[in-house]
Each structure stands twice: as structure tokens, then as C-alpha cells.
């Protein structure tokens, strides 16, 4: 059974500082997705990482994938309040039918 672990589960960030959050998974996979969820809202797709060494950047967020270590990182540069949300990683356990297994999510809170 695929397990996806995210840590930390909650992170209080100071505006302007850099942070990194992590996503570990237990089974070989080369497809990993990051989503953002604001309170009471649905999930917004942030990044699609499809191979070992993949790196994607959008604004202050940069995601990378190391399939050998079964690890993805999401790096936040100069945190701003607008980044406060819950971030989920999801791994595609590709068998006969692709489906996503989600982590529990990391809630980021940016304080002045």
C-alpha cells in the first residue's frame, strides 16, 4: 500500500524568510503532484513532476522530485501572506489505472 507522508504538518512562517517542506512516499513512482487548498475551498494544481530530477518553479514556489529517495521538496522563497494555505502532495501509483494517493497536507501560516 502506498503511503505518502508530509512534514511538518503545520508551519508558521515569517514574512520574507525561506522555508522548505517535504513529501515522502513509500512506493516507486515517478509522478508527483502538488496542490494548494485554501480554507473551505477546492484544490488548485500547482506543479506536476514527472521524472527524477524534475524541477518546476512558479513565483515564490519551487518544487523538485528525487525518485530514488522517494522525496519531493517544496521550497518557499521570501514568504508572503498570500502563500498561507494547505499544501498537499499526491503520488500517482501507476498500476493498470493511474490514481493519486494524497498526503495529509501541510498548513502554512505566514505571519508579519
Amino acid at each position, binding site marked *: 500500500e502506498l503511503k505518502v507522508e508530509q512534514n511538518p504538518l503545520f508551519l508558521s512562517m515569517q514574512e520574507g524568510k525561506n522555508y522548505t517542506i517535504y513529501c515522502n512516499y513509500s512506493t516507486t513512482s515517478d509522478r508527483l503532484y502538488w496542490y494548494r487548498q485554501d480554507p473551505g475551498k477546492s*484544490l488548485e494544481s500547482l506543479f506536476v513532476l514527472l521524472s527524477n530530477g524534475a524541477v518546476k518553479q512558479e513565483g515564490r514556489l519551487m518544487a523538485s522530485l528525487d525518485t530514488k529517495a522517494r522525496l519531493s521538496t517544496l521550497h518557499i522563497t521570501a514568504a508572503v501572506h498570500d502563500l498561507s494555505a494547505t499544501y498537499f502532495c499526491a503520488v500517482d501509483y501507476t498500476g493498470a*489505472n493511474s*490514481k493519486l494517493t494524497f498526503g495529509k497536507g501541510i498548513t502554512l501560516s505566514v505571519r508579519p
Partner: protein
Amino acid sequence: EAEVAQSPRYKITEKSQAVAFWCDPISGHATLYWYRQILGQGPELLVQFQDESVVDDSQLPKDRFSAERLKGVDSTLKIQPAELGDSAMYLCASAGSSYNEQFFGPGTRLTVL
């Protein structure tokens, strides 16, 4: 911009009643998913359709939940009878590419009293 549509957005019902949720995926997306998200958790897959066929419903509580996608376009998820533990956000997602990037609808927040 194409979006996944869901209705209703909110539903309050009493236990033992029947409820139904509707989802209209992005046009052309062959794969449709229903997820349940309990507060503080990640989404959990209930059922996956490829066109009109169910390809995975291993986590669907079939004694009370049913899902259909008769014409391979929109889909309905039904719960009968609803139980207190069914209170959650029900999310629909669709995917159209081989990369399986899933696009989520706004969700239906179900509260069972």
C-alpha cells in the same frame, strides 16, 4: 477557462436520508474521480471512471454509496442512507491527459445531522 462543475455546493441532511451530488467534468476529459475529504485530511478516492466504466471503486462503501456516469460525461454520486460519519467535502476531479493531472471542482460540503 474550462472548469469542473459540481452541485450543490452545500448540503445539510438528516441521517438516514438520501443525498445526491452531481459533477460535470471539463469537456473532453475521459477520466472522472470522486473523492471524500474529511476535515484535516487529504482527499481519499471513492471511485474512478474511465468514460462510462468504473475502473476503481475499491474504497467506495457500496452498501450505501453508488456512483454512475451513464453517458461518459457527467456523473452522480449518491448516498443512501446518510450517516453522521459521512459529513465531509465531496470533491469531483477530471483528467484528460496521459499525465493524469487532475483538475478539481469546487466540492460539495455535506453535513449530516
